């Protein structure tokens, strides 16, 4: 177990370094700099600002400086939001993403899982058809359509819920963003659970359980559920990272102060440090959640041996 963890960690470090290098290189290779704005400033002034941010140094030195700071956990100052550090932007924004992300995923597992399970148990009935139709709809309707529609119906027409804003995560403000964010995942998880459940339900040990005359509850919950969840676990790791990174549109439409929006505006504004910082963070999250998924996998399925 420990060996496994160490090995994964050893791979994680060069991976993150590679991510940082690529992001840094690509961004600096893009024409235009953070201080090229709609009103051009005299060259001498531009040079003095660039000197303040070390942008006048050769690229390799800027790179080494960045890596040095990165090792100390310092992601540098933001170019776009002056007098604000990238660390601070992340410290304020990440909890927002984690909150709506985990809520959305929790809701998705609960609803998607039940929907898929139900569809599998009542296979080829109207229940199954309706559930799978909804799932197909959820997968195919993009969030940038769903989110404004939710606002239009629930905020503008019915006036039940606010059309956006965060207010440190008050429940009323969470409902619509969480729904918008979780819908595709509900759908995806429902389809996955159904597929996995069908396979498990037709296996011989389940048939044995039925043959022993066990009640349905016991067959499903005690015997079938755990193996059904197996593919879900390996999906949830990357999905959580995906929810965090994929919330850009939800954040913009609902005006949430998460970091997804910075990712976009940072690239548009050539905010080098902000984009590289968030990229590295996202990379670290994906690595961490994959690792977590593997650990959970081993924990749920005794047949998995991590050290081998």
């Amino acid at each position: 177990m420990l060996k496994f963890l160490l090995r994964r960690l050893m791979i994680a470090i060069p991976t993150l370094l590679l991510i940082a290098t690529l992001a840094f290189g690509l961004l600096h290779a893009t024409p235009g700099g953070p201080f090229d704005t709609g009103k051009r400033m005299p060259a001498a002034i531009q040079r003095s600002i660039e000197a303040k941010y070390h942008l006048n140094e050769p690229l390799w030195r800027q790179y080494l400086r960045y890596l040095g700071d990165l090792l100390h956990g310092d992601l540098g100052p933001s170019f776009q939001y002056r007098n604000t550090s990238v660390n601070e932007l992340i410290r304020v924004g990440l909890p927002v993403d984690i909150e709506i992300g985990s809520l959305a995923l929790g809701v998705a597992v609960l609803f998607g899982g039940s929907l898929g399970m139900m569809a599998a148990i009542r296979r080829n009935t109207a229940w199954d058809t309706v559930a799978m139709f909804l799932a197909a709809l959820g997968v195919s309707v993009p969030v940038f359509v769903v989110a404004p529609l939710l606002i239009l119906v629930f905020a503008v027409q019915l006036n039940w819920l606010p059309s956006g804003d965060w207010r440190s995560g008050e429940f009323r403000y969470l409902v619509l963003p969480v729904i918008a964010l979780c819908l595709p995942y509900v759908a995806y998880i429902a389809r996955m659970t159904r597929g996995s459940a069908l396979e498990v339900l037709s296996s011989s040990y389940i048939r044995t359980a039925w043959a022993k005359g066990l009640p349905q509850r016991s067959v499903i919950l005690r015997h079938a559920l755990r193996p059904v969840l197996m593919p879900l676990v390996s999906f949830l790791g990357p999905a959580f990272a995906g929810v965090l990174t994929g919330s850009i549109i939800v954040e913009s439409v609902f005006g949430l102060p998460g970091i997804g929006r910075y990712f976009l505006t940072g690239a548009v504004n050539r905010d080098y440090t902000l984009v590289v910082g968030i990229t590295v963070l996202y990379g670290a999250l994906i690595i961490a959640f994959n690792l977590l998924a593997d650990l959970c996998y081993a924990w749920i399925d005794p047949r998995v041996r991590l050290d081998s």
Partner: protein
Amino acid sequence: MSAFRLFGLGLFGSAGLAACGGGTPAASGVQPVSVGTALAAEQTITRGLQDAPRTLDPSLATDTVGQDVIDDLFEGLTTIGPDGGLAPGVASSWETSADGKTWTFHLRPEARWSNGDPVTAADFVYAWHRQVDPKTGSEYAQALAPIVGAMDIATGHAPVENLGVSAPDAHTLRVSLIAPTPYLLALVADSYLQPLHHATIEKFGDDWSRPEHMVSNGPFVLKEFIIGDRITLDKNPRYWGAAGVRPARVIYYPLDSVIQISRYLAGDIEISDVFQTDQFQWLKSHLGDQVHTGPYLGIQQLVFNMIDGPFAHNPKLREALSMAVDRRILANKVRLGVQEPAFSILPPLAGYHQPVPAWANWNDAQRHAEARRLYAAAGYSAQNPLRVQLLYSTDPQNRDLYDAVAAMWRTTLGADVQPYNEEFRVYLQDAALHKAVLMQNFWIGDFPDPFTFLQLFQSGFAQNFGGLSDRRFDALLAAAANEPDNERRYRLFEQAETRLNDEADAVPLLYYTSRHLIKPYLKGWHLNLLDRMPSRYLYVLEHQGN
């Protein structure tokens, strides 16, 4: 104050709500609002901002969205008055020397910082020093260019003490200018020239502009600033004019202009700071008189590369192209009547006679015929058409505009002009390097004065994208710069602009407009040329519904 906001972040926002803006039946039921005449009990005002301000440090802020908030937090020597024009701010009176180069401002003794300290002339001296100090890293140090020594200091060639500003006593500020600068009164209302609280900045350094530290002298104080979420301001009881400030709280929400519409419809914001022109008809039909547009001091124009390429040294060709553009069609069809056609570079400005070329009033047939004649005289024909590319910055609205312009050139002249776009920052870089022969050069004036527009064509100016270097034009600008009499100064600017028109150095297309949605129960606002709407004059009437 960058033109950036106008090409800002329409990215997926427009894709999002535009779909709904197209007229889903659900959206048509905008609830009616009934408005009373008495003041509402709660005077909280919610405003949309199309982007989060980069900072609320007045020396560093460069964006229009920051300007709106800073106008509420700080007050300069002059300020925006209730009618949208200039009004005395911290300075209650001022006088100029006979040559117009020395100004003396008398500060009102009752002006206070939000911590109770008096606002003194030294606070202005400190702020202006900080603005031009290269160590501050201000992106707009050249805003102070008219002041003696400013550019030498900003470029690192002189110490900050050389700046032509002094405080003979606590309530007198003396400013020395390189040349008479009649627009100084407008300039000192800008965020860059607002006073700063020295002790706070010394104590907290770059962190001074955070809500927990900021000391300001305007009608409001900063309560919270969450970059992606909102900015909350509370009324500043120590503001000298606090008695006239009605809002107890102002909340700004940074949101894409398309998202602002849904927030507005839901009643969660009461003023939007802009909407896209292509949404105008839908908004007008659903919100009627809540949709407000007004002239805004900005020009959308094309400039020619004057260094090389087919347009350099070919005024006939340039004029043919300019003449062949049907600006009224651009304004009325492409921009749905939201924007005004531009036949000269300067937007309408009080006291300034726009030198409009004679052909602006010809009928289409006459104008097209003359354009074709000039095109032929420049050596082009159906067999030998002009083939060039037109550079603009990526934006669906820009694309509509230039596709229309290119089509006009194709039908009227037979010219083959291919618009191509580049992402905003790439475009800026390429345009500054004169990499295109024909390119957009949008400009928003910083203050209502001809100079801010005409400098775009001055030799060596950083945003002279066409690279024009016209000795006669430069001489006229220099003469205007040294002219203390504003009447005569304006006449010189008119001559300078006439020179640009005669040489057809640019193709003015459309003037900008400010575009707002404002709830019917919100009063006290005045649209103005600079599109600045201070919150202090706003108030909420009793109302039912939103």
